[in-house]
């Protein structure tokens, strides 16, 4: 999957520089030239799960205000499945319930649902 994104950063030259530096160290991203306070990037990921995860990482960088999606090519990806197949079957009443408690570690990104499967 190839996607391109626009990363909007607080309009401060030092902040832009820091964000560019952080992105450049991530192997999946390719940087374009900054336009005002916006950084165009290309992301190549094995699947949309990884792409989404990388996008969240971008959003979590200090001074990043917004990450917008511009382009998504998923011609080699086919991963939509029945809901109950992809969500897991860990309902409380089916005997396989093993909902994992969320981490209380406040250094984690607490904006992600703690009940996400660990191996995803």
């Amino acid at each position: 999957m190839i996607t391109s994104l626009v990363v909007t950063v607080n309009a401060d030259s030092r902040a832009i520089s820091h964000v560019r530096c952080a992105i450049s160290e991530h192997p999946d991203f390719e940087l374009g030239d900054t336009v005002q306070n916006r950084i165009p990037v290309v992301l190549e990921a094995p699947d949309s799960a990884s792409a989404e995860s990388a996008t969240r990482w971008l959003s979590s960088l200090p001074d990043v205000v917004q990450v917008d999606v511009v382009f998504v090519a998923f011609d080699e990806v086919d991963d939509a499945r029945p809901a109950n197949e992809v969500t897991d079957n860990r309902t409380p009443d089916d005997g396989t319930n093993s909902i994992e408690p969320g981490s209380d570690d406040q250094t984690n990104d607490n904006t992600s649902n703690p009940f996400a499967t660990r191996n995803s």
Partner: protein
Amino acid sequence: MNRETTNRPRREFIKASALAMATAAAGGRSTLALPVLNREPGDAVSWAKAPCRFCGTGCHVQVGVQDGKVVAIAGDKNAEVNKGLLCVKGYHVGGILYGKDRLTQPMLKRNGKFEPISWAAALDVIADRIEMEPSGFAVYGSGQWTIPEGYAAQKFMKGGLANNHIDPNARLCMASAVTGFLATYGVDEPAGCYDDLDQCDVLITWGNNPAEMHPVLFSRVVDRRSRGEDILMIDISTRRTRTTEQCQHFLQMKGHGDLAIANAVARYLIKNKAYNPTFVEKYCNFKAPDPDNPNLHGKPISFDEYCRMVEPYTPEYAAEKSGVPADQIQLLAELFANPDLKITSLWCMGMNQHTRGTAINCLVHGIHLLSGHFGRPGDAPTSLTGQPSACGTVREVGTLAHALPGGRLVVNEEHRQHAETFWNLPSGRLNPKPGYHTVKMWEQFCTPTEQGGDIHTIWVQVTNPGQTLPNLNKLFGPKKNLKDKFLIVSDVYPTATTQLADLILPSAMWVEKNGVFGNSERRTQQWFKMVEPPGEARDDAWQTIAVARRLFERGFEGMKDKDGQFLFRMTDDEGNEVPVWQWEKYYSINVDRALFEEYRQFTRYKHKDLAPYDEYVKARGMRWPVVQRPDGSWKETRFRFVEGYDPYVEKGRGIQFYHSSTKDDRAQIWFHPWEPPAELPDEEFPFNLCTGRVLEHWHTGTMTRRVPQLSRAVPVAYLEMNPEDAAELGVQNGEVVRVESRRGAIELPVWTNGRGYPPRGEVFVPFFDENRLINQVTLDAIDPFSKQPDYKKAAVRIVRIEP
């Protein structure tokens, strides 16, 4: 040669193109062509425009199709709404077509099991149910219907069956916004538009979380601030959200506190002579509820009476009722008192899903009018919608139990005559009695026939009431044991609703069919079919027309016009009738175009003029009223009721509310008192339950739960609660508890360090999870005018489940 080596040059080409596109979007340029995924001649991707399938923002995407499959999505650089940018849902809007459990053939339940049947047999089943008793047949539709789909259903029911039992799921999400606009301006839908977000100095979100629910709109404001513009953002809500994180001020209120806050702002403006007397004297009247005759238009009051009514709402009194400190209320009031600022208010479910939804909608309009923060770009009270065509299909086409297309009412004889004329029906065909609104419709369906439950069949299209209705144990669950009731569901995937269906019809979705949507800013948007639907899935409008034809062939009088012709008779360019009820002929002509052009006749009465269909083919949507200029071109309207923008405002009038309910071109400033929620926490049920959505899942998750990464990110519903409350109950993060109300109970894991940071005594549960139906717990109390339920306030208790 391995695949990677083979594809490397192509991938490098795509990456280079994608980067160029992002660079162009970052710079706001619109000169670059879309990336071509393959460079080989004859093997290129074809691109075409469509509005996004998800929320009511109405972002335009370009859809890349190759070998009959959607393979790429790009933000549409020519679209004013999103200017080439998309939220993360852009990753998934293509993939929603390809869930492996798509419904692909009609299925009839026999002896408790679904069996495949032919479309012909399915049409006969529906026709039989209708002929059995036409008045007991109902249609439950959606703000996800396209405009032509909703219009066809509307004509089928009201024109064909003379039956007004048609209502949409939008009753559950924006009906109070409608009644608020009607009570204030005499006509529905916002006067402002998204351009206000580019001009406002202050953005106030009233029970609204656009950072997650309408991210592209929210980013228009956040982006301005990131470039150094001075924008003040204020969030008024019962819980912290991602929107709160971006706001300088957070006014955390108790349920219904908004009523007290708005009245306190009005009082402050009057007490400090900080209202806008010129604006008020020229353009406004005052109204209050009429207790002797409760109705949407209330009774007129004088300015002095209005002042006396708001007088008790001191900041301290409002603080007591709302839980918001008096100094924060005063801060808000001071902003409205400043005529130099431009203030935009946004709201969505928080103000609409409210048993005083009409009242709070009116009050927020009222403080904008009282202070004169209306009519300048950036100065606007604007409601948002959650579905892509809640405005276009529900509010404009009027797919509501009391309405006719174009803002007309079934109770109004003149309005019925208009519809009978446009539909070429015999005079008196239309039924003057409003049908059942959503809650009543499902209540009647779930009540045994012998006990007065007079709805025997409901046909559901494009929605999932088995998950979204409030108080499901009353309004949906009983159907299971009512053998004479029959549920028909047209959908694309199995849902909580199809579980109780008797007949399932597979539908085409999004770019598998032609369509027209109407977004939250009055923008009408058209697209063409790009790929084939799977199996035997077919357009919803075709399904409606095919049933109508089946009835016509059986001699059902209602499916004939006054000349004896089929109600949905359509012709080709030579005037020859085309049998569009035959699926193989359905795309012989553009049925959407034919339905839209017929519907367009209805739109001028309330000055919601639409352009011809072909104009929308060329555009990325246009905001009504769209009027033709002397040179033949069609011009949209950004700001209604404002001279210089709205072509229907007379010269020299400045602002003219030309559909005023008082017939004097004035808007109504309302007083409504603070009243408590329909159900308050008490000793037995000590917590208040608020329900809502999450970023990863759109509504009931029927599309997004099929996208693995979204489901992995948020796989199950949860109970968000304050850590101190959890500690007091002895509940650990992640532990499963039972949430109980007077209506039902479900079990959910607790999340104490999540996104919403509810205050003590407040809990939040998202409603996307069909395995954990929070609407078994919610309350079915409704606003008296809009008939919209309140999903934000129900008393519950949290019970620890002993291991």
